[in-house]
C-alpha cells in the first residue's frame, strides 16, 4: 500500500477496504487513519448481489408479483 499524505493506494491487484466499503483510492478524512484500511486481493472483493432485486423486478413487470 502506498501512503501519500492522506491518500492510500493499494498495490497492484489489491483493493482497500475498511470492512464496509471497497476502493482503489482512498482519501482519508481527518478522523480516519491508514490503520482502519487494509488490502485484500481484487478477487476477494464481493460483487453486489442484486439477484433478488432483478427477480422481483421481473415479477412486477410481468404481473406475477403482489
Amino acid at each position, binding site marked *: 500500500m502506498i501512503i501519500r499524505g492522506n491518500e492510500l493506494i493499494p498495490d497492484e491487484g489489491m483493493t482497500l477496504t475498511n470492512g464496509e466499503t471497497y476502493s482503489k483510492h482512498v*482519501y482519508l478524512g481527518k*478522523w480516519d487513519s491508514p490503520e482502519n484500511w487494509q488490502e485484500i486481493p481484487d478477487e476477494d472483493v464481493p460483487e453486489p448481489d442484486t439477484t433478488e432485486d432483478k427477480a422481483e423486478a*421481473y415479477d412486477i413487470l410481468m404481473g406475477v408479483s403482489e
Partner: protein
Amino acid sequence: MGIDIPSFILGTKNGEGGSSVTVEPLSVTENGTYTAPSGKAYSPVTVGVVNEFNFSHAMGTKMSELPDLSKLDRTSQVLYFVVDTAKYDIDLYSKFGVIPVSDGADITVSRGYVGDSGFVEVESTSVESNKAYLKTLDGDGPRFWVFRLTCAGNLTQIKNVTTGIVDSNALPIVAIYGNIPNVTTITSYNAFYPPLVTDMLGVKTETVKMWIGTKTKISGKFGITLTNFSYSKYACVSMDLSGLDLSESTTLQNAFGSCYFLRQIKFGSQQQTSGVTSINNLVANIPCLEELDLSGLDFSGVTNTGYAFQGLNHLVTITGWANIPVSYSLSSSMGLTHDSLMVVINALPEVQTAQTLTLGAANTAKLTAEEIAVATEKGWTVA
C-alpha cells in the same frame, strides 16, 4: 432516452448487467436499439423519442418495447391507463368486448373505468373520448392494456378509478400517465394491488392528494391513498413529492426502492424529516433513475443508510442533497456529473467520527484534490 427495462434489470442479453465495475459509456445520437459490447455492466439500451402512442401494431412484441411514457404529449388533456390483465386471465376479446383493429381504431368498452360523477365517462361512444389501444405481451403471458382517454372539458376530479371488468373485479392499473393539470383529487384507487411496503406511516393522505393539481408535470402520479401507495409507486415514471407530509415519519426505509420505472424523483423543499433515522434502500435499485433531488430533506438524525443509493446505475444529475451524517455510498452511479458530485460534497455535514463517502473510482477521478479536500476536512473519508 428509453431503456430496455426488463433486459436491463435482468441482464439477460449481456449476462451481468448492473454491477459496479467501471465501463465505458455507450454513446448514441439517433433513435434506435443499441446493444453494447459484451462485458460486465453493459446492458442493451433503446433510444427513442416517442411522439405517438400507438399499440395497435404491438401484438406479440415485448414489454421492453413499450414507449417511454414520460415523453408522451402533455399539451392536451389526455390520460393513459396501463392495465395489467395478467392476474385475471381475462379473455380480452369476449369479456371486454374489444376488437383490436388497425391504427387509431375506436373500441367499445363494456363499462366505464374512470369517473362516477360525470367528470369523465368512458362509456361514451364519442370517438374522441373513447379510444384504447391493445398490447398483448409474450403470447399467452402477461398482458398490458393501455387506454388513452381524451378528456373533454376541464377535468378537475377523478373518482373510482377502476376498470370493473368481470363481476366487479377491478383490473390492476399499473400506470397512469397524462396531462391533467387541473385535477386536484384522485380517489378510490381500488384497482391497485395491495400494498407491499408499509413504511410510509407518516404520510398524510390528504396531502398526498395534492400531488396532482399542484404540479404541471404529471407523469405517473400514484398512491392517492396511503394504503395504495406502496405498490403503485412501482409503476411511476416521475415523482414530485412536494405535497407529501413526512413530518411524522421515523423511517424512509424502502420508501421508493425498486421503483423500477422511475426516471426522476423530487421530494420538495419543505419537508420535515428530522425524525427519520433510517434511509436504508430509500431509492435503491432504480435502474432508470436519472435525476435526484434531496435538498428538501433533513437527514441529520439518520443513523442507518444501508443501501440507500445502491443500484442507481443511470443516475446522472443530483440537484440537491441532504445532510446525511453517516457513511454511505454512491459508487453505483458512475455517471454522476462533476457538478452533481460537488452538490453532494458541499452538502456533507461536519462529522466528529470517521465517516466514509464512497464515490467509486470513476467519480473520484472527476474531482480535483482541492475538491476532495472539502470532504476530508469535514471529517469524511472519500473512497
